[in-house]
């Protein structure tokens, strides 16, 4: 793969590098931000990066299993966002905050 990294010849490596960049941006966001909502958005960025890697490898291997898997990832992400956001609403009603540093009642 690495020797085929030309600028005007788009290969699978380009897509994988884009996916890795997106994943790292998502990781940095999860670590930096304290707002639970923005952390949720950054987790969505990470999920999308993984989806891009799955589709790229599926194209590279001439299969469509990766695409089917991306479909399932999207369905699970939809369920996760519904549950996560309703948890956030419940948390905001009880604690009047969505700052993850102030939600430390489980801390020993």
């Amino acid at each position: 793969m690495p020797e085929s990294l030309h600028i005007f010849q788009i290969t699978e490596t380009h897509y994988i590098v884009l996916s890795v960049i997106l994943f790292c941006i998502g990781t940095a966001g999860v670590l930096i931000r304290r707002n639970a909502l923005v952390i949720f958005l950054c987790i969505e960025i990470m999920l999308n990066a993984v989806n891009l890697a799955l589709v790229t490898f599926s194209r590279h291997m001439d299969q469509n299993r990766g695409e089917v898997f991306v479909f399932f990832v999207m369905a699970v992400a939809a369920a996760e966002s519904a549950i996560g956001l309703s948890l956030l609403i419940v948390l905001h009603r009880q604690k009047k905050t969505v700052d993850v540093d102030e939600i430390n009642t489980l801390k020993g």
Partner: protein
Amino acid sequence: MELTFIKPFMFYFFASLTTGSALMVVIIRNPLYSAAMLVLTFFSLAGIYVLLNSEIIAVLQVFVYAGAIMVLVTFVIMLLNLRSGALINKPTHIIRSVVAVIFSFLLFICLISIFVSGNQVENAPKGVITAAAIESEGSFQLFSRALFSEYLLPFELVSLLLTVAVIGVVVLIRGISGAEENKQAKKGQGR
């Protein structure tokens, strides 16, 4: 129709748009603007999927992520009352930001070195869904045939999962509003 000439330019356009708007999601203070930037990220990723010859994933990306999930997020932001100031990000401690950036940069280097140097993928057996097969049959047909024959059981399980998620949301929200109703009823009795 040959689009090979403009394909690199399209890729760089969509890739820079995706990366830039993803960075803005992390940098911007106001969560509502972060959500808007995330919609831009999802749309440009749909463009990347079209360049990868998988139109079905591009369409699903726009429908599910840019449509359903982002509408839900925006709705929750509106519901949580932005004016109260609880939602606006307070400035993060500088040490924390530096550590986070260093950690994610190390992660970047590790992942790049794994993906770009790994050649185990090259030796694995290839499938039958080549570019010519997609051209003749269409990616929608190939995707749907795989989904509804080989992956029928996971498909049904996912529908079950979505139903359980809906029930879970109703239980969570009803629990909290039921408690508030009880409190109000007690107040009424005290008066």
